[in-house]
């Protein structure tokens, strides 16, 4: 007998449901621009070709997201569920800060919870659906150009069906003083929900902005976010991008952030995952010009049965750029961390400096981490390094602090906080950093 051929008959129910949703969407949404329709059609074709990643898929081998979605979501769950009046949203939102607040609940923009403070000369913020109508030039120039639907099924899925999200345009030479905080809230109080927001951030030459995408859950049922963000960092621009995940234990998340940097720009990313069911973050960074600088920091601080999988990719295409990556994980209980860091240094990218480090602490025997650096270097005059460590709390350090009168829990908490601070100190929005430090401190006090 020959091997089983994966054909339409062997699709998972969830994949079939998503394809049907996408198909229906193609046929009914004629109002948007022909360009956007074309992008969607291509993505749909890619999705049909790719299918959702199965058990054999190398890129998703530790994160069986398709299986989990198939198990927890029925076809009727995947249509958008509107819950404008979700209770408990306001307490999720950072207070005491002058910021542009944008709130999505189950993928739908909530005017009621949102508030813009920056003047429109400094930054244009609108929903993506509005931008499809009002900023056709920018949309045609940038939308769907970086998020790769050909290789990642979740990007293809999002591109095929996404209707809304945030559109940001920072014109040339503007330093946006108030950060942009975008909240994506899953409200599962009434029913299971699936949301697929889509964002496009364009930062023009010599401009600067702080962006935060923050994910939260209201309700106890299963929720799923499949999000895609494209970030265009133009010449000499500075972008500080943060992704914060504080989700419920029955939520699923696939996120793709695609960044393209042009000359002399600076991009900083900080990804902090505190809770959730299964989270997959893809952070793809294309450095397509010289003299760029990029920093990617990550902290995953997990307990219970949370799984967080960070896949990062840095593609050095041109010479003289610098990238640095530091991901740190603390795994408690039965939680699981995955880190995969790809670094490509293309033949033209001479004098590249690319560094990568992944450090993990396992607090129990049941916690685990799979870490894999993947460096592919075609240029010869480069400085690249990578390192991964996994261990327990350092016994000598613990003993030292105990001899000073700290009990084991206090000493452990102090050491873990210090471990995490390497990442958290890179969050320059102080109230955000403080909130995260507080959540992490509480976690440390509670669990150990």
């Amino acid at each position, binding site marked *: 007998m020959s091997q089983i051929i994966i054909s339409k008959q062997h699709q998972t129910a969830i994949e079939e449901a998503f394809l049907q949703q996408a198909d229906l969407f193609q046929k009914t949404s004629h109002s948007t621009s022909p360009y956007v329709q074309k992008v969607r059609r291509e993505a749909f074709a890619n999705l049909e070709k790719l299918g959702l990643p199965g058990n054999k898929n190398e890129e998703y081998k530790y994160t069986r997201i398709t299986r989990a979605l198939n198990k927890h979501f029925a076809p009727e769950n995947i249509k958008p569920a509107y819950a404008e009046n979700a209770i408990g949203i306001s307490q999720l939102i950072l207070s005491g800060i002058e910021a542009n607040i944008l709130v999505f609940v189950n993928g739908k923009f909530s005017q009621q919870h949102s508030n813009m403070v920056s003047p429109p000369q400094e930054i244009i913020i609108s929903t993506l659906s509005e931008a499809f109508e009002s900023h056709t030039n920018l949309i045609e120039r940038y939308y769907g150009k970086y998020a790769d639907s050909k290789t990642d099924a979740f990007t293809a899925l999002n591109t095929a069906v996404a209707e809304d999200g945030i559109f940001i345009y920072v014109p040339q030479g503007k330093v946006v003083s108030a950060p942009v905080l975008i909240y994506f809230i899953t409200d599962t109080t009434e029913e299971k929900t699936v949301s697929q927001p889509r964002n496009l951030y364009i930062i023009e030459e010599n401009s600067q902005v702080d962006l935060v995408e923050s994910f939260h859950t209201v309700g106890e049922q299963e929720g799923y976010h499949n999000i895609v963000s494209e970030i265009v960092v133009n010449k000499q621009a500075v972008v500080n991008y943060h992704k914060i995940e504080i989700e419920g234990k029955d939520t699923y998340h696939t996120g793709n952030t695609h960044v393209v940097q042009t000359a002399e720009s600076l991009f900083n990313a900080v990804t902090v995952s505190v809770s959730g069911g299964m989270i997959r973050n893809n952070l793809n960074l294309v450095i397509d010009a010289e003299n760029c600088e990029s920093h990617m920091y990550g902290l995953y601080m997990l307990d219970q049965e949370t799984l967080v999988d960070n896949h990062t990719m840095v593609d050095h295409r041109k010479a003289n750029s610098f990238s640095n990556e530091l991901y740190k994980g603390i795994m408690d209980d039965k939680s699981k961390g995955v880190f995969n860091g790809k670094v490509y240094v293309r033949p033209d990218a001479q004098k590249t400096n690319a560094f990568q480090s992944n450090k993990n602490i396992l607090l129990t025997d049941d916690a685990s981490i799979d870490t894999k650096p993947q460096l592919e270097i075609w240029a010869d005059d480069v400085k690249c390094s990578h390192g991964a460590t996994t261990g327990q709390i350092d016994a000598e350090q613990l*003993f030292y602090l105990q*001899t000073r*009168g700290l009990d084991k829990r206090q000493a452990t908490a102090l050491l873990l906080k*210090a471990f995490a601070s390497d990442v958290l100190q890179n969050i320059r929005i102080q109230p955000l950093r403080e909130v995260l430090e507080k959540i992490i401190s509480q976690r440390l006090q509670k669990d150990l």
Partner: protein
Amino acid sequence: MLTIENLHAKVESKDILKGINLNVKPGEVHAIMGPNGSGKSTLASVLAGREDFEVTEGSVEYLGNDLLDMNPAERAREGIFLAFQYPVEIPGVSTTNFLKTALNQIRKHQGLDPLDAVSFLKQMKEKMQLVEIDQSLLSRALNEGFSGGEKKRNEIFQMAMLEPKLAILDETDSGLDIDALRIVANGVNKLRTSENATIVVTHYQRLLDYIVPDYVHVLYDGRIVKSGTKELALELEEKGYDWIKETANAATI
């Protein structure tokens, strides 16, 4: 206050302490001398509660309690302080970072209210002067990039802050130049009272010119092979450790 009887300890199936007897009373200073590898640091670690060392025989009574029954934090709260021979580096944690928690844990144990920020800073200032240590050192990651002398001075500073009843100084003099040695010794002397006791581990007599001991013990191959007053230290300095080794080896044969 401290009574050690027939203490045996091993690490990884290697016997290191082979029957230590020692009696320390409040107000006393005991010096423990001996060649490298004889078990001085092991004794200090066992007293502080390091778990790598397994006590196989004997007992240690401290202030009427079974010391070996307490974890390291309980011992610290009961007033035991170890100045480490090799203080560990702790990235991301500064002395000021942990010292307030440490001090307040000890105070809590003694039934005292926690120190507020102002009183804590005041006490810091006072003790910083005592051991002539700079504020900047205390805000840096513990021992990271510290010189040998800075590490030792930081240990004594912590001792000054925590005001232990029984301080064990493990080779605090090694790596110190004469000025630093004088500062450290001066700090220790100023903290001496009739209530607290100090065990000074060293293998040079030099420190004992500044911290004058009531008793001197020579530790060799896991046993105290000779005890005396401070003259013993001078004699050791003169005759060298070979003299001890010979007498000790002769005795065991």
